[in-house]
């Protein structure tokens, strides 16, 4: 009996509990409205498309929890994708292309990290500049033209399934597990949250704030690289104008998952569920034939609604401010 009570207490403490409820409501709503919505096949297709934002939201969540923000990831995806396209069109192997993509993504992390941690630039500005530069380079390299890619490895990563589940989703789950362990069971992961809670306290606690921030952005860059490979593989093409919204969708997913934009708090599991929720919403609306501009309005509204609920939940009782 007391075990049950403890269990309930533990469940109640989960930050993203309202998110799960909201998700359930959305699923029920679409199931009622569309006969095709509630099926294993459809859910697998949702998870297939959600995996890119889901993967990106993992380290986006950590970046936000560290009190930072990144606006450049979408452009990094476009840049990495175009570089892979050019390399493979020129005849290099898919493996070399992927390695270079990872390297470039990691270097964008080095750029962000150095600008923010060592130069002391506001992360908003540094990554906004990065967003424009990386996108610009992608256009320059491709002459603003798209490159079609057909490759068996990419087909395996982007479309194939293992045990009925898309491989992209497996990669997302693997990374979720990995970063879950990093966040909860390594000193580095814990330091990220202390830095986000207060850089001053972190510094006076002997944490090398600059080095850890740089390291975090490099890791974020590498993970963006993974997302790039999956994105390119699913699309079967490299487009310099691609992934304009991916970055912001990932931030939205993290916010839905209960991350604090001032830092110090965030849930990886919540962020992935947030990514799934957003993809489910768009999938459901597509099925109902909602016009795409209306979809934007509704998605924006859902985000505002969820955050408002969270604010109301956390507002202190008995105080008028």
């Amino acid at each position, binding site marked *: 009996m007391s075990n049950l009570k403890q269990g309930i207490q533990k469940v109640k403490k989960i930050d993203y509990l309202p998110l799960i409820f909201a998700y359930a409501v959305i699923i029920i709503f679409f199931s009622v409205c569309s006969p095709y919505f509630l099926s294993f096949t459809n859910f697998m297709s949702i998870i297939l498309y959600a995996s890119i934002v889901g993967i990106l939201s993992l380290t986006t969540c950590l970046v936000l929890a560290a009190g930072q923000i990144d606006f450049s990831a979408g452009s990094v995806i476009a840049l990495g994708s175009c570089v892979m396209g050019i390399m493979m069109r020129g005849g290099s192997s898919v493996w070399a292309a992927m390695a270079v993509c990872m390297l470039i993504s990691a270097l964008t992390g080095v750029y962000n990290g150095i600008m923010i941690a060592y130069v002391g630039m506001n992360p908003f500005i540094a990554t906004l500049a990065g967003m424009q530069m990386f996108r610009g380079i992608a256009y320059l390299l491709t002459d603003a033209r798209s490159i079609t890619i057909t490759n068996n490895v990419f087909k395996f990563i982007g479309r194939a399934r293992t045990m009925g589940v898309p491989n992209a989703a497996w990669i997302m789950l693997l990374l979720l597990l990995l970063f879950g362990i990093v966040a909860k069971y390594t000193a580095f992961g814990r330091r990220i949250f202390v830095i986000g809670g207060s850089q001053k*306290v972190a510094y006076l606690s002997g944490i090398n704030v600059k080095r850890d921030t740089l390291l975090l952005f490099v890791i974020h860059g590498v993970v963006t690289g993974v997302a790039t490979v999956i994105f390119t593989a699913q699309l079967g093409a490299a487009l310099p104008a691609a992934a304009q919204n991916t970055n912001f969708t990932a931030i939205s997913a993290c916010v839905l998952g209960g991350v*604090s934009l001032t830092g110090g708090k965030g849930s990886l599991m919540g962020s992935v569920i947030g990514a799934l929720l957003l993809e489910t919403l768009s999938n459901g609306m597509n099925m109902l034939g909602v016009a795409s501009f209306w979809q934007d309005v509704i998605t924006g509204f859902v985000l505002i609604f969820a955050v408002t609920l969270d604010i109301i939940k956390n507002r202190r009782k008995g105080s008028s401010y």
Partner: protein
Amino acid sequence: MLKVEHITKIFPGVKALDDVSLEVRKGEVLALLGENGAGKSTLIKVLSGIHSPEEGEIYYKGEPIKFHGPVDAKEAGISVVHQELAFLPLLSVAENLYIRHYTEKRHRLVNWSEVNAAAKEAMDMIHLHIPPERPVGKCSVAECQQIEIARAVYENAQVLILDEPTSALNDKETEELMKCIEGLREKGVSIILITHKIEEIMRIADRVVVLRDGHTVGECQVGAVTKDDLISMMVGRKITDMYPKKTNRPGGTLLSVEGFGTDLLSDLHFTVKKGEILGVYGLMGAGHLELGQALFGCYSKYTGEVRLGGELLRLKSPEICIRKGIVFLPSDRKQEGLVLMHSVKSNIMNLYYQTGKNSRIVNHKREESISRKWMEQLRIKTPSGETIAESLSGGNQQKVVLAKCLETDPKIIILNDPTRGIDVGAKAEIYHFLNALTEKGVSVIMITSEMPELLAMSDRVLVIHEGKQSALLEKEEMTQTNIVAAAISNDF
């Protein structure tokens, strides 16, 4: 003037105020005394309209009154000067004083000469002379407080509530504030002074009301009670030994500092013995507060040599210092000591992984047992280790900061104003604990602005004046006169 009767205020799970009554008369200084958590803050919030009480009446100038928010109370003439001052540091003193008018319709256009003139007029009322154009960020804490008081007086406050106004002031600034309060009293302003410092009550208050656990436990004329009476009323027990009898026996030299200097400090020569408490004193702005940070590696540019047990130290970052066994307890626990939104446990573990001695893999069971150990040893009052640090009282928060420092098993602990703004009970506990620490051979550098604490706890005292060492006093020479004399002038 202002009277409350049978006030009860209930928060989920706690009765913060239980049948409290008090009265402040015109032109009177009423002191409100109580440990942290006694209900003082809640009472202020009721008086200033932030909380509305479940039961009880508030009478203002003889009429029953109900406030529906802080603006109501302010308009009626009740102003609060809070512990944490809410100023915009980049804006000028004058503009900060004027901000309220920006919401009025007739002030859609800003007339700067009028703004500055009004500020000057307000400050003149309490004989404060600060150039109105100066940014508030360049004013000292003491000046900010007086600016806030000027604002209240200018807005015709008839009841002024001061919430622990002296917690960040040195003796000289405190004296100035006391004079300012006396001036207001003569003008017929009623003042409610919330404080931990009994000396101040004896110095300035007419009457004192003591709160404990949400109840009024006593009300008396200041002339009729002694200091010890007040303390025992406050804590419900007699603290005859607020300061422990010192039982440490300082050993050989552990830390030697030679020719040490930073941009604010220069040419310091002193040693710290094993198991001793070296007190460091200075007036506000003397540079003594920076000494703690400098010895903890926060200034990467410094001159001179610092040796720990003979080994030359590179004081380049806190990270290096922690690895060598030096830890630092900052004065501002809310900004620098704690991640307020994180749990008590997580805060206690903040330094643990930086000592270089512990595994970088987090073991949650071990974290649990470490935090439980400190919660017991330091008697940290918290529902559990998972409680958010922000919800603890000041004294308990300070114990959490102390715990995170001590978990590294340091050789030297540098304390920067260790008992600022915490209640008498927690203070006494911290003093006893420090004594026990030094007994075990840990050295303490205690930088403080509080004279009684300095005299009672230090084995020797280093006095700093304008960034220079003006005296290093042995136990026999440590008198208040000697220390203050050295703090005021270099020619001691």
